[in-house]
């Protein structure tokens, strides 16, 4: 028995050895770790048509043992930027890099102050991330600044969508995202029957083709609450991530019209991974498809494309909101 215990102890101690890692700084090794994690987890290589192997070849040759932390950080950020994904990022204890600006090439003009002063002049309330009130007599307006506490959003429209209100404007312009998980549930208040509102695709392994089939998500009709008012969702290129999800899911509802600019996209859910020097790399590992099966990574197209201009905003006119009011009054 004692020999067995000695033998097992030796085996056990042997297992300890491969656990000994530390905070090392070896630029080529760190770049390999970084590149490999992105290679095995990023979901949009085909969508973005990026040759990740070429990115490795181009950057690995820049790395030498004397490469500084700052240089390595910049090389990794440059690699991530080639993917043009606002969810991708690299973080060290001293800085954050690689947030791709999805608004590039778009004229994003939006003024919450103008809406509050000119369109909600009869009065408005602010509850959490939500500013709401009546515009144009019988149209209810709710602006969502950040996709959080969506149960509060449900409370607001349930309290205010009475028979005197003929339409609802949901404004997610310049909304950078947050949590959209409750959207299919709240859409149950606006549908008569089970409605397909979008699909998720998740990475299922390290190879490019390792993805789940689209997992459809449905809005189930709420037997307790039902609204049949027309809805306009306002979007612009600053509507990103969860607010793009929301726009895509609302678009699947027959009573909803999207007005404004194509959203910023951001269909990916991101995961984080720590490299062996303590830096954290984040990349998109899941995709969201609208009800028609299109990825929303590049944005959700509006039904009516309207662009605000700084000149018109200066005159006190929000053309997107005016179009929404016009549609709901028709």
């Amino acid at each position: 028995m004692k020999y067995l215990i000695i033998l097992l102890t030796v085996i056990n101690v042997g297992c300890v050895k491969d656990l000994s890692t530390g905070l090392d700084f070896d630029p080529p090794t760190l770049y390999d770790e970084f590149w490999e994690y992105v290679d095995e987890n990023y979901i949009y290589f085909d969508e973005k048509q990026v040759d990740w192997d070429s990115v490795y070849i181009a950057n690995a040759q820049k790395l030498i043992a004397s490469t500084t932390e700052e240089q390595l950080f910049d090389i990794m950020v440059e690699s991530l930027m080639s993917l043009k994904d606002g969810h991708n990022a690299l973080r060290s204890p001293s800085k954050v890099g690689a947030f791709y600006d999805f608004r590039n090439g778009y004229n994003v003009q939006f003024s919450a102050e103008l809406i509050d002063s000119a369109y909600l002049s009869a009065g408005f309330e602010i509850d959490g991330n939500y500013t709401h009130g009546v515009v144009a007599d019988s149209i209810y307006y709710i602006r969502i600044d950040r996709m959080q506490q969506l149960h509060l959003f449900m409370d607001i429209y349930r309290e205010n969508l009475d028979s005197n209100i003929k339409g609802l404007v949901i404004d997610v312009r310049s909304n950078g995202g947050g949590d959209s998980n409750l959207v299919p549930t709240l859409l149950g208040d606006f549908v008569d029957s089970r409605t397909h509102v979008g699909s998720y695709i998740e990475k299922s392994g390290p190879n490019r083709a390792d993805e789940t089939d689209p997992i459809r998500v449905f809005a189930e009709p709420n037997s307790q609450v039902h609204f049949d008012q027309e809805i306009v969702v306002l979007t612009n290129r600053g509507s990103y991530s969860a607010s793009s999800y929301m726009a895509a899911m609302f678009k699947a509802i027959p009573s909803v019209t999207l007005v404004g600019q194509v959203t910023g996209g951001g269909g990916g859910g991101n995961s984080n991974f720590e490299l062996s020097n303590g830096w954290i790399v984040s990349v998109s590992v899941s995709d969201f498809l609208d009800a028609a099966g299109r990825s929303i990574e590049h944005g959700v197209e509006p039904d009516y494309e309207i662009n605000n201009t700084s000149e018109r905003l200066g005159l006190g006119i929000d053309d997107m909101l005016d179009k929404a009011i016009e549609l709901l009054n028709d």
Partner: protein
Amino acid sequence: MKNCTIITLTLAFILSFSTLQGQDNLNDTRHTIGVELGYAFANVQESRFSKLTKKIRSLKFGINYSKENITTKQVLAVHYMGLGSSQSSKGLLFNLIRPEVNYAYLRKYKMNWVGGFFNSTTLLNMPKSSLVGFGNNPISYTIAQSLGIRLERDYDISIKGKNIQVSGWSQFSLLSHLIRPAYGHPYPEAFLNEDAFSPTQAGLASSLVKSGKVVSVNKYMSFKISLSISYQITDHVSAKLIYNSYVDKVRSIQPAQFWGQDVLVGVYYRN
């Protein structure tokens, strides 16, 4: 699959043999119950989250019950450790909870105890970071129910009329029911289906159970070794100093490894 069958039949043989032979001397049965408290030191590799090995320190406590006669012994032990923290990196801190239940049925063979065990261990990891809030992979879990073999040996020593018992045991899993997250995100595989999936994560618990797989040691290995010195304070009360060392290892696309060592002190009452 052939390996699994052989292992299962071996286990069944060991356990049934122990059960059949364990009915002797029931009148001499002794019951012992005790509490244990101490400190655990662990190294954790969780490749879903990090390239680094995290060092965890945590309080650990447990309850131990055994029933023993001269031919058979049954031991039920429940242990818990949690509130771990990493000292390896400022990037990502591992927060762990590790409850464990272990039941062993042993038969005396010459001077040794030989038998099988059932072990249920959950390793729940909820990392946090001052650099970033977690996204699609905020949690990892390794839930394993294992069957395996256990060997045990006790030595009784008398020093100046005081009874001291030195004990050692080791156990090695052969077959396990293992639940791990699917690749890249916290969901179990059974949740990633149209009829099961919900963005609000409703129904996740039942999918967790359905996602379990029976695996042999090439996929999940659990090995433990324990050494202890017990001192008889009175006829019914004893105290024990215990050292445990154990490894839980998941071999998969995203491997994980937990290697821990405990130093515990226990107080026991025996009828």
